[in-house]
C-alpha cells in the first residue's frame, strides 16, 4: 500500500512539473502572440516569408473591397508604424475602420502582409451608454487589446 501511495505522489509531481514547464514556456511564447505594425516594419527582412500574426487598429478610410475578386485591402496601425494588408475573402462583421483587429498570414517580399485570417476583437468591458463613444475611449479600447497580446 505504501508503494502505491508513493506511485501516486510521484505521478502527481510529474504531471504538475510538466504542466508548469509547458505554461512557463507558453508564457514566453505568448509574448509574441502577435506583432505590432511598427515591430514588423522594423524587422522586415528577418520575418519575411514566415507565418505570424499582426495586431493593430484598422486605419480610417483605408478599407478597399472588391466583391468581384474577393480582395480586401486595408492598413493596420499602432500609431507609429503602418502595415498594408491584403486578404482574400470576407471579414467578420465587427471588423471595421477604427476598430481592433488581428490578422494571421505572412509578410511578403513585395512589402505587404498577405492575410489568411482576420479576427475582430471587442473588449471585455460592459457599461451603460453614459459616456458616448469618443476617440479617447477608442484609444483606450485599442490599448487594452494590445495589452493582451504583448504585456
Amino acid at each position, binding site marked *: 500500500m505504501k508503494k502505491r501511495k508513493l506511485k*501516486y505522489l510521484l*505521478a502527481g509531481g510529474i*504531471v504538475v512539473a510538466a504542466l508548469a514547464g*509547458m505554461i512557463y514556456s507558453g508564457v514566453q511564447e505568448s509574448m509574441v502572440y502577435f506583432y505590432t505594425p511598427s515591430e514588423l516594419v522594423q524587422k522586415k527582412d528577418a520575418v519575411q516569408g514566415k*507565418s505570424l500574426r499582426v495586431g493593430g487598429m484598422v486605419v480610417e478610410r483605408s478599407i478597399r473591397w472588391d466583391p468581384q475578386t474577393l480582395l480586401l485591402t486595408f492598413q493596420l496601425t499602432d500609431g507609429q508604424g503602418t502595415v498594408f494588408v491584403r486578404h482574400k475573402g470576407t471579414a467578420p462583421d465587427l471588423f471595421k475602420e477604427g476598430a481592433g483587429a488581428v490578422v494571421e498570414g505572412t509578410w511578403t517580399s513585395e512589402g505587404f502582409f498577405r492575410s489568411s485570417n482576420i479576427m475582430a476583437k471587442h473588449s471585455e468591458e460592459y457599461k451603460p451608454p453614459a459616456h458616448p463613444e469618443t476617440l479617447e475611449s477608442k484609444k483606450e479600447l485599442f490599448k487594452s487589446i494590445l495589452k493582451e497580446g504583448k504585456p
Partner: protein
Amino acid sequence: MLGELLRRTWAMTWKDVTVELRARERINAMLFFAALVLFIFNFALGPDRETLREVAPGLLWLAFLFTGMLGLGRSFQAERENECFEELLLTPGDRESIFFGKLAGNILFMVTAEALILPLFGILYNLDIWGLLPSLALVAFLGTVGFSAIGTLLAAMTAHLRAREVMLPLLLFPLTVPVILGSVRATEAILAGGGLTEVSHWLKLLGGFDVIFLVVCPLAFEFVLEE
C-alpha cells in the same frame, strides 16, 4: 524494479506482435484503409493543387488518426473474443506492464501505417516532403505516442461495452484534441518550410502532453482492468 517492468512490457508487446505476424489481420486492415483514405481524398478535393497545399497537414493527420483508431479498436479484440481478460489479470506483477506492453504494440502498428502513408501522400499529391521527412517523423512520433496512450486506455475501457465501435472514437477524439491540434499545427509549419526551431513551442507542448498522458494513463488503467 524498472528492469522488471521493461521485461514484462517487452513480453506483452512481443506476444501481440507475434500473434499479429501470424494472422496479419490488424496491420493489413490498417494499411489498406490508409491507402483507401488517400485515394478518397483525391475525389473529395479535386485537382486544385493550391487548395491541397493548404489542407495537406490536416489530411495527413486525418489519415494517421483514422488508421490509428482502426488499430486501437482491435487492440483488445483477441482478449475479448477468447474470453481471456481474466488470464491477462492473472499476469503477475504490476498492471502497468500490461498497459505499456499494449501501448508499445499500438504505437508500433500506427507508426508502421504512418511510414506507408507519409511517402505515399508525397507521391500521390506531388508534395515535396523528402527533405522534411526527419522533422515530420519526429512530429508524427510525438503525436502518435500521446494519441495511443489515451487510445489504449479507452480501448480497454470500451472493449466491454455495447456499441464499442461508436464509443471509442466518441471518447477518444475530444480527449486527444490537444495532441491532434499540436501535431497538425507543427506539421503545417514544417510543410510551410519552417525548421524545427520554428515549431519548437508546439513540440514542447506535444512533449508535455505525452509525458502527462504516459504518467496518468497507466495509473488509470489499473482501475479499468480490475474485476
